[in-house]
């Protein structure tokens, strides 16, 4: 017994690494429902904003982030894209950061293939816009002066997906996914001025600085990191990347706690046995 404890206390780190991998991997592959997730008001209002849109209206998604914050923002964009497709809402995707274009194409293509949606009819990639201030200002006057063509060079106005859209005010809901200050620009240069529905998704670090916009009703709601995504998914009853992510992260936390408790129990047992020997 004593030997086993001594051995366990000096266990090969690689076994711990394996346990960590499993803790993260199992919820990705299998569905695990974690208790305790409470849907916040601001997530609920983003959900309602999209859910209340009539069939055939439009969701514009702006992918303003890069790979470093992808784990936190990709899942929420994914579930919203699925929600829109499910409700037959058209999806437009754009990006103010260059790597965001690749992320958007990857995400929406995957969802579209799965849900049998057609490019040009149900969704479109608008591409990258380097100068976001002028683009945001111009959106309210003429959408097509910012994006005359889609990212593949087709005349945008000729695509069926754009029917009935002249300015950004004709879009049902705009979502900005960002880890930087793009939300400030969206609010200041566009939504405050033209008064369309704007929602946002952001990282855990940025959440406090974005919350005031929700309180002042400048944005309809805010999704905060993986947790916000998971809340959204629970509203949609969908086991997506965020739910899996929250489960993964929670499993990791519990693994650490279990290991700490185990190690300390073993140390105590060791002490106890030593005293007994005396």
């Amino acid at each position, binding site marked *: 017994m004593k030997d086993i404890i001594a051995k366990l206390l000096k266990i090969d780190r690689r076994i711990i690494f394996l346990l960590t991998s499993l803790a993260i991997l199992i919820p990705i592959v299998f569905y695990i429902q974690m208790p305790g997730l409470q849907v916040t008001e601001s997530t609920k209002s983003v959900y309602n904003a999209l859910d209340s849109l009539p069939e055939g209206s439009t969701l514009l998604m702006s992918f303003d982030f890069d790979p470093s914050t992808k784990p936190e923002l990709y899942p929420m964009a994914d579930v919203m894209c699925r929600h829109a497709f499910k409700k037959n809402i058209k999806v437009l995707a754009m990006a103010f950061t260059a790597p965001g274009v690749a992320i958007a194409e990857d995400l929406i293509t995957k969802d579209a293939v799965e849900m049998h949606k057609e490019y040009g009819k149900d969704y479109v990639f608008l591409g990258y816009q380097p100068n976001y201030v002028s683009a945001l200002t111009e959106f309210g006057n003429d959408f097509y002066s910012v994006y005359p063509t889609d990212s593949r060079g087709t005349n945008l106005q000729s695509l069926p997906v754009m029917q009935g859209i002249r300015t950004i005010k004709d879009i049902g809901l705009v979502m900005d996914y960002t880890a930087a200050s793009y939300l400030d620009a969206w609010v200041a240069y566009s939504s405050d001025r033209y008064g369309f529905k704007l929602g946002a998704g952001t990282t855990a670090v940025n959440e406090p600085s974005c919350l005031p916009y929700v309180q002042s009703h400048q944005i309809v709601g805010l999704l905060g990191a993986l947790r916000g995504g998971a809340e959204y998914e629970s509203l949609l009853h969908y086991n997506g990347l965020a739910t899996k992510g929250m489960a993964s992260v929670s499993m990791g936390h519990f693994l650490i706690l279990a290991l*700490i408790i185990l190690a300390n129990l073993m140390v105590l047992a060791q002490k106890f046995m030593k005293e007994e020997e005396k």
Partner: protein
Amino acid sequence: MNIFKKTLPLAICFVIGVLSFLQYYCPHHLSDEFADVLNDHMNIIYFFAYMLGLISLSMANWGTIKRKADGWGYSVLLFVGMAIGIISGIAAKGEFIANNHMTAYGWMYTYIYSPLQGTMFAILAFYLVSCSYRAFRVKSKEAGLLFLTAGLFILGRIPPGQWLWSQIFGTACGGISGITEWILNCPTLAARRAIMVGISLGSIATSVKIVVGIERQYLGGTD
């Protein structure tokens, strides 16, 4: 020669140091201009310093290849990586997207650079677990306090943890999130502030020594 080798650098350091110090207190247009110009200068000097680093790295690895030292093939690989970065970058003029298509540079960033960076960063999660197992053992009262607090935060940051806490201990004191919030805003903040105040004193002392030229080790050499 001593004037150029020693006096001139110290004089430059003193003059620039004093001016940068005073700049903070002067709202005048010229003072702002001075700060902008200096900032630009630092960027430009930094570019050359970066070139120095690049040359130094290349020379070291070139030496390895030339000597055919152990594992010289890896140094070749390093140059291959460097060539991928530089050639794709120059060809794309530093843009990830051109004419709405991902450039080779953008491809390199998305599929080589960021997975490598992200994975290296993510390895931290493994180390956090193994370190917790090894280091968080009650050896003393102090160590106990450390891992108890860490444990509270590890539990209190996840929804199932909060749920578990409320099932066992109820929601007194705002539940576990209320307790962690207080720890964060009170004892933790106190220690952090004290560390910062101490650092500020040490940092100002070092800065003063540099500006007045007492600390001149950065010059290197006595001649």
